């Protein structure tokens, strides 16, 4: 187990290095640089700035400096925002995105497992039909439409109540988090419901459930102890990739609900070619995703002893 974890971590590090390298050279292949902005700079100012930021050096030297700083954990200073270190930007805005993401995953997992179990329990009856219809809707409607409709219904809700029941946008209190995280988790919830349903149906016809029935264990206990626990396993496997999906979906939700998360900064930095912010957020997100997937794999091995990690 320990050696497996170590091996996976090492692989993860190499992946992160690859992402960093590809992004670095890709970014420098784009014509223009952070100094090509709205303001026209004179030749001399431009030269001075280039020297200051090290942009006058060959790309390969810049790459070397970047790697050296990265190893020290220093991501540099933003080009477009005054005196802000990329580390600070991430430290300030990532917790917001992470809170949103964790809440969304939480809603998605709880909802997915509950609805999925319910549909399997009422297979081919009315609750099953209704939930599966909603699931198909959840999968088919794009996230930005869900977000827009979510916000629209919030406006209507506040209108009807006459007061502000839940805030329409922004960030700060728990009340700000509810609707955006629900919206963000919706498509994942739909996906997990489907997965949970099929996994439950498969387990209903398994040998150990039949044995449990034969022993005379009450149906409710079979359901919770035997079916539910075993059916959750495949759901856990897809949680890793789901985190990736939720981070990309987070951009849209952050823009629509005016949430000061990292996703907005990333989109903005890409448009302004802010080298250090792009590199910093990309490496950070890349590392985050890679290690999340590893973590989920390790947890999976721990929950299901039949899976041998090697």
């Amino acid at each position: 187990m320990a050696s497996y974890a170590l091996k996976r971590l090492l692989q993860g590090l190499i992946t992160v290095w690859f992402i960093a390298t590809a992004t670095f050279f890709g970014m420098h292949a784009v014509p223009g640089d952070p100094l090509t902005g709205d303001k026209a700079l004179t030749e001399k100012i431009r030269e001075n700035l280039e020297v200051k930021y090290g942009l006058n050096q060959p790309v390969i030297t810049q790459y070397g400096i970047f790697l050296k700083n990265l190893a020290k954990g220093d991501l540099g200073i933003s080009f477009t925002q005054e005196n802000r270190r990329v580390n600070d930007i991430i430290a300030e805005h990532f917790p917001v995105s992470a809170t949103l993401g964790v809440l969304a995953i939480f809603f998605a997992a709880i909802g997915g497992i509950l609805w999925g179990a319910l549909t399997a329990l009422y297979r081919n009856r009315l609750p099953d039909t209704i939930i599966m219809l909603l699931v198909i809707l959840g999968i088919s409607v794009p996230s930005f439409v869900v977000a827009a409709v979510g916000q629209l219904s919030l406006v209507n809700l506040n209108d009807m109540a006459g007061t502000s029941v839940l805030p329409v946008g922004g960030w700060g209190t728990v009340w700000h988090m509810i609707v955006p995280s629900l919206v963000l988790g919706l498509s994942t919830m739909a996906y997990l419901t489907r997965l949970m349903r099929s996994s439950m149906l498969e387990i209903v016809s398994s040998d150990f459930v039949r044995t449990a029935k034969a022993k005379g264990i009450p149906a409710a206990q079979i359901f919770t102890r035997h079916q539910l626990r075993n059916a959750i396993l495949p759901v856990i496997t897809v949680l890793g990739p789901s985190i990736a999906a939720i981070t990309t979906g987070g951009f849209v939700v952050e823009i629509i609900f005016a949430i000061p998360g990292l996703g907005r900064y990333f989109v903005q930095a890409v448009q302004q070619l802010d080298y250090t912010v792009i590199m910093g957020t990309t490496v950070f997100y890349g590392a985050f995703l890679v290690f999340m997937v590893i973590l989920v794999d390790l947890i999976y091995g721990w929950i299901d002893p039949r899976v041998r990690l090697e």
Partner: protein
Amino acid sequence: MTNAEQTATTFSADAFAPLAQDQDVQSISRPSLSYWQDAWLRLRANRRALISLWLVVGLLLFTFLGPVIWQIDPTIQDVEQISQAPGANRSVTLVAEYEPWQGQGSSRFAFAETPTTQSVRLQWENFNPSYGYRVYRTPYSIGPERAFGLPLAETLDPFFEDRLDLRPMNYYYTVMAIDADGANTNNYHTIEGTVARVITLEDARSRGLVTTQANPPIGTKYEFAWHPLGTDYLGRDMLARLMHGARVSLFIGFFAPFLYVLIGVIYGSTAGFIGGVTDQAMMRFADFVVALPFLLFMILFKVMTNTGPGESGIIPMLFAMVVLLWPATARLVRGQILQIREEGYISAGRLLGAKTNYLVLRHMIPNTMGVILVTVTFAVPSAIFTEAFLSFIGMGVAPPTPSWGSMCNEGIKTMLTHPHELIFPALFISITVLAFNMLGDGLRDALDARMRNRE
């Protein structure tokens, strides 16, 4: 012994003549079906898959036959009908040329004339003669938070004429008495009025509603052009834009998956067939590609192909999707190939002297075809989603080229006042994605017996 001798002697010569074959040794009760015929039969029995198949056919007809029937140019702006909801009133009344107005004096707050798109004339009792009034306009009713809307003017006179960008809709006008500092007081009056759409003779002639010779009387009613699904914020016909947008969305939706699945199949089958260290290295590389940030590379390709702002970003988007999304298919096909490689018929083929190329092309790829087809079907909705997402954040198809995603992007800005501009493109995306998801489910059930009933 004696018995046998006896029988032997009774055989005549014609007993040794061959029998006429009037009966099959083995009969096949049903016609033999190939794998694909069988799959087609199973698909046809699946009601949901059949519905989705018809939906896809309908979408294709909408995309390719639609513009032939509905020949409206999607770029033409109908400036008289901006952000029109479907089924909105299209009538317009002929009025006289505009003439200036100086108020008539009134004892109560009222419209001096019927409000029209030419001008809205308000007058009221002079209840605050010393400091004057501020006039507000809003399309929403004024709630407890006292949102009066757009401040139009400050005046000392007890009348006001609004000619600012009037639309044929409901407005709430508020006359607010202001104090010495120009601040709002609690003394205000609100009036609601519906603005009627009017047109002058000259405008009507230039729009082709009236011929140059004709001289119809004031008050004649006309109808503007019909837009079945309304118009967008620039007055462009929604139906025509949806039809043209469908081309972009479906082009990316079909072509991108086709290309990246093809690359994935080639890559995955090569890795799976060669195996060993090469396989490990190839799959590790695929893992790296999966981890690359999609958005950044998308923009990178956009710039590398010299797509400036204003040009449509279809090709760079296609390129980015192909370069970044192939690994999932590669992994799947590799898994299949690894499994099939151990099958008996491959060993048998090898024993009979089949070459590697022959084995791959003749046995392995056809046997993974079902899985590949299902992957393509599920890749179509995800590609349409990606296009919509990228266009939505402004990184995909650039205006004026319509695509469903960019139409959603434009529609979301006016979502509160004109929801139809968001609803229709979103509906088309949803229906397409839904159809392909259901078709994918049906195909998976039909093609892969092991996957059946998994939902």
